[in-house]
């Protein structure tokens, strides 16, 4: 699925968004979320962030999430790009973009994809600096965020 990409290489967020919606005149709304590597974490100032992942499952999981989002929010399309490997401070980690007729579907779908990806996509972050490193712990708030999208 070309609109679900897992890669170590950096990407240009703006260019990806433009390519994603290029030449389409049927869409009324595009919503995008970008996640970046911050320069601080639980271990203090960071020099890098390392992302480990489970390749086969991550691809499967994100493709399932893509299909689910397109169907549930009646999207024209969605784009999910997630990096892995050792990333620099300030680098992009993830991009999620959605195309829809109207803003509500586009915004809700982006929110749904990000909240669900946070707890179900097999990536693990490790903070790194000159003195130490530590695995990032998952936050209870992330589980709550995923759960609130679950249908009864």
């Amino acid at each position, binding site marked *: 699925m070309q609109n679900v990409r897992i890669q170590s290489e950096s990407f240009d967020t703006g260019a990806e968004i433009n390519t994603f919606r290029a030449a389409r005149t049927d869409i009324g709304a595009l919503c995008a979320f970008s996640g970046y590597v911050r320069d601080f974490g639980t271990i203090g100032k960071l020099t890098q962030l390392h992302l480990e*992942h489970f390749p086969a499952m991550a691809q499967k999981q994100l493709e399932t999430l893509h299909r689910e989002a397109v169907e549930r929010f009646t999207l024209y399309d969605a784009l999910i790009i*997630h990096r892995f490997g050792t990333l620099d401070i300030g680098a992009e980690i993830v991009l999620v973009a959605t195309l829809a007729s109207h803003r509500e579907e586009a915004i809700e779908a982006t929110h749904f994809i990000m909240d669900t990806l*946070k707890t179900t996509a*097999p990536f*693990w972050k490790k903070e790194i600096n000159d003195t130490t490193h530590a*695995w*990032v*712990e998952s936050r209870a708030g992330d589980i709550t965020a995923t759960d609130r999208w679950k249908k009864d």
Partner: protein
Amino acid sequence: MKVSYFASMREAIGKGQETLSLPDNIKTIDQLINWLAGSGDAYHRAFADRAAINVALNETLVEQDAAIIDTDTLAIFPPMTGG
């Protein structure tokens, strides 16, 4: 059965994957985890908090009580922190 470990669990156990022969009495993932936890200190420490363990059977997230057979692949890992 091929079992893979990731992230802090991989570091605690000291390997990213291994191939196990399922004993006849091991029918579910939690039984397998109990068995591994009893087989060595590293496993015991890695699996100490069962609520913090996620499992994927044949690359799909499942609950720990899922049934397993020797030809399945299993992955055991901590809560995910992507995004």
